[in-house]
C-alpha cells in the first residue's frame, strides 16, 4: 500500500462539476484505469481518497490535488497515462508523488492564487490599494445559521491588476476559512467607485501552505 498525491486540472465545462461529484468520478476513473485503490473495511467499503481543498462551482483550476492510497507501487508515468486515458474531458492528471512526512498537510494550507478575467471594468491599481488599506471590509457571508456580516480584509493577501481585464489575487484558503474570489469581486464592486467587474471567470493557479510551499 502506498499513498500518493495527484495533481489535477479542472478545465472547460468540468468546472461545473461539484467537489462531491468529483469523489465518485475519481473512484470510477481509477476503476476504468484498473489501478486498485485501497478500501476501508466494513459493510459499505469506501476507497481511501480525499480531495484537497474546496473549489467553487464554476471555477477552473490547474492545481487541484487528490490524495489516494493505492494497493501497489507503480511507475508514476504509467499510472498518469492510464488515468488520463480514463478521465473525462476537462479533468487531467498532471503530476503525482508519494506522500511522505515532509509533504504539505491539508491542515497547514494557507492561501490560494487566482486569476480573475472580466468583460467589465477594473479599477486602477491605486484604487485597489486604497481599498485594501481602508481597514475592515465587511460583506454578508452565508453561514450555517443564515447570513452574517464578516470582515474579509484579514483573508486578502494580495490583489494586483494584470493588464486591462485581469486580476491576480492571493486569498486565504485553509480548511476552516476559504475566501472565494467571487466574494472579493462583489466587495470591490461595492466599495470601489469605478469598479464594474461583471461576467468574470475565475481560475486557480496555486495552493500554498504556511511555508509558501506548493501542494503539488
Amino acid at each position, binding site marked *: 500500500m502506498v499513498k500518493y498525491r495527484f495533481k489535477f486540472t479542472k478545465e*472547460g*465545462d*468540468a468546472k*461545473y*462539476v*461539484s467537489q462531491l*461529484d468529483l469523489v*465518485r*468520478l475519481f*473512484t*470510477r*476513473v*481509477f*476503476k*476504468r484505469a*484498473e489501478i486498485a485503490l485501497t*478500501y476501508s473495511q466494513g*459493510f*459499505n*467499503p469506501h476507497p481511501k481518497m480525499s480531495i484537497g481543498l474546496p473549489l467553487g*462551482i*464554476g471555477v477552473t483550476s490547474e492545481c487541484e490535488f487528490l490524495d489516494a492510497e493505492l494497493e501497489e507501487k507503480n511507475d508514476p508515468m504509467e499510472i498518469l497515462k492510464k488515468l488520463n486515458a*480514463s*478521465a*473525462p*474531458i*476537462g479533468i487531467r492528471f498532471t503530476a503525482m508523488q508519494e506522500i511522505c512526512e515532509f509533504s504539505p498537510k491539508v491542515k497547514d494550507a494557507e492561501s490560494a492564487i487566482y486569476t480573475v478575467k472580466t468583460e467589465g471594468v477594473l479599477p486602477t491599481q491605486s484604487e485597489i490599494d486604497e481599498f485594501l488599506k481602508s481597514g475592515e471590509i465587511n460583506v454578508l457571508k452565508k453561514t450555517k445559521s443564515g447570513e452574517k456580516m464578516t470582515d474579509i480584509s484579514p483573508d486578502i493577501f494580495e490583489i494586483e491588476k494584470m493588464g486591462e481585464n485581469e486580476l491576480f489575487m492571493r486569498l486565504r484558503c485553509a480548511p476552516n476559512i476559504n475566501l472565494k474570489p467571487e466574494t472579493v469581486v462583489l466587495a470591490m464592486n461595492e466599495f470601489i467607485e469605478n469598479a464594474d467587474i461583471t*461576467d468574470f*471567470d475565475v481560475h486557480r493557479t496555486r495552493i500554498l501552505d504556511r511555508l509558501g510551499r506548493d501542494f503539488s
Partner: protein
Amino acid sequence: MSLNKILKRVQKPARYIGNEYGSVHKNLEDISVRFAFCFPDTYEVGMSHLGMKILYHLLNNEKDVYCERVFAPWVDMEEEMRKEGLELFSLETKTPLKEFDMVGFTLQYEMSYSNILNMLDLANITKIATERGENEPFVCAGGPCAYNPEPIADFVDFFILGEGEEVNLEVIDAYRKWKGSGKTRKEFLESLLLIEGIYVPQFYDAVYNEDGTIKAFTKNNEKAPDKIKKRIIKDMDSIFYPEEIIVPFMEIVHDRITLELFRGCIRGCRFCQAGMIYRPVRGRSPERLLDLAEKLIKNTGYEEISMSSLSTSDYPELKKLTDGLLDLTEKKKISLSLPSLRLDSFSMELMQKVQKVRKSGLTFAPEAGTQRLRDVINKGITEEDLMTASTTAFAGGYGGVKLYFMIGLPTETLEDVEGINDLARKVVDCYYNTDKAVRNRNLKVTVSTSTFVPKPFTPFQWASQDNIPTVREKQAFLKEKIRHKNISYNWHDAETSILEGVFARGDRKLSKVLLKAQEKGVRFDGWQEYFNYDLWMEAFNEAGVDPDFYNLRERSYDEILPWDHIDVGVTKKFLENENEKAKRGEVTPNCREKCSNCGIIKGFGGGLCG
C-alpha cells in the same frame, strides 16, 4: 458565450454541460443525419433510462449519423433561457434543436406530455405537425406510451411502435434516401409507411359520436396500413447492446450499469401494461450477459450493476447468472442489485448472495390487501408467500421492508383496503417472531399505496377509475387503521392519478387541452412541487373537454377505443376474457405453466415466449 453566464446562475449546472465520459463526439462534416434524442424530463431522470442508452449508442454506431441528447431544462434554467433568448439545445454540440433532421421523444409516462410541448416551445419548433415548414425537423416519438399515441398525435410527425433497435435504423435509411431528393415532407412520411411499426397520425381521421365516443377511425391516405403492428426483437443475443455507456458527472437516479436480462413477463397481472405490451418473453443467455457485464464494468468504472427486467427472479438461469456476476464483481468491490423480486420465487440463497457485497432494503409488492383482490388482478401470490419471504429477510438481518400496494383496483371494497393494514401488521409479527440474535436491531415497515390507473392494452382498459373523493376516503381510512410505531404509510396524491388516467386512455381531442395547458405554463407534472391541478382544470374547461369522460365511466366491449388501430400482439378478445375472469375472481396461470393464447405467438411467429 451566453450559456457560460447562465450556467453560473442555475442549480446543478452539470445537467447542461455534456462531455461526460463515454459521450460521443463526431466531426459534423462527416454527418448526414442529425438526430436529437429528447427525454422530456430532467437530466437525472432521463440519463437513468436504459432505452436511451441503447438507442444513443446504436445510432452513433452509424458513421454518418450523429445522435445527441436533449433533456427538459429545470425551471430555473428555463427561466434564464427564455430571458436570454437561448433556444433549447443539444448537450453534445449545443446545437439548437430546430437545426436537427429528426427530433425524437421517448414517452415513458403520460405526466411528461406537457414537457414535450414545452420543449418544442423552447426550441421554437412549430407544435402542430401538419403546420411544420419544409425546413423544420421531423418530430417522432416512441416508448411505452406510444401504444396510445392519440393524445399527442397532433404534435408528432410519426410514431415508432415497439422495440427500436431495428426500426430506428430503417427510419434513418429512409431519411438518407429522402434527404436531398427534393421531395416534400409528406413524401418522406409516405415512404415510412413501408416500414412496419410506423404510425403517421396525419394519415388518419377520427370521427366522433355525439356522446364523445369514437364513431369511426379511418385512414385518409390509401398507402397507410389499417392496423399498425409493433416491432419486436426476436433474437436478444445477437441484437445490439451498448458495451460502453455514458458515465455522468453528477449523480443520476439510477446511477449504475443496467443489464437487461429479458423482455416481457410471464405473469400476466391484469393491471400491468408492461406485462402485456412487452410480450412475448425473450431472454438473453447468461453467456451473453456475463460478457456484456465484464465489458461494461471495464468501460464505465461503475460500482454497481443491476439485473433488470420486469420480473427478474423469473429469469430461468438466474443461479448461473448471479454466480458468474459475483465472480466478476466481488473482488472489484462492485455491488449487485436486484430491482424487483417476486415473493414466490424469493430465495434465501439469492438474497444472501447479493448481500455479500452490500445490503440494501427490500421491496415487496403484494399490490392488494386480500387474497380475493389479488386473484382479481391475477397477482398469483399468497399471504403465506409474503410471510415466508419476510421471515427469510428478517432472519437474514434485513430491518427495512417496503410494501407496495394499489388503491382503487376494480371491485375494491374497504375490506380490501383494511387487508393492507392486516398484511403490514403480520409482517411486523414475522419480525418479532425472529430470533433476537439474528434479526436487525431496528424494524421499519413502509407501506406505500399508488392509485390504480387503468391502462390501454390491459384487461382493465374498459374499467372506470376511482374519483378523487373515493381515493381520498380510502387513503384516510387506511391511514387511520395503520397506527403502529414500526409502520409508516405513504400515498400518492389523487389528482396526479386522475390526469394520468385521462391521458393514458385519451383521444385526439386532448391535444387542444395540452396546448392550452402549456400556454398556461404547466410543466414537470410528474414533480409534485410543480404539478398544478387547477391550471389543468382551467385548460380542460377552456378547451371544452370533460376529463371525467375518460376516467369515470365503464366502457362497453363494442366501443371503438382510441388505440384500436394499434396491434401489440395481444388480442382484444384475450383482454376481454381476462376482464371477465377478473370479475369472477378466477386466476390465469403464468405463461410457463400454460399458454393462455393471448395472441402474441400467432401475430409474431412461433418459437417465442421463452
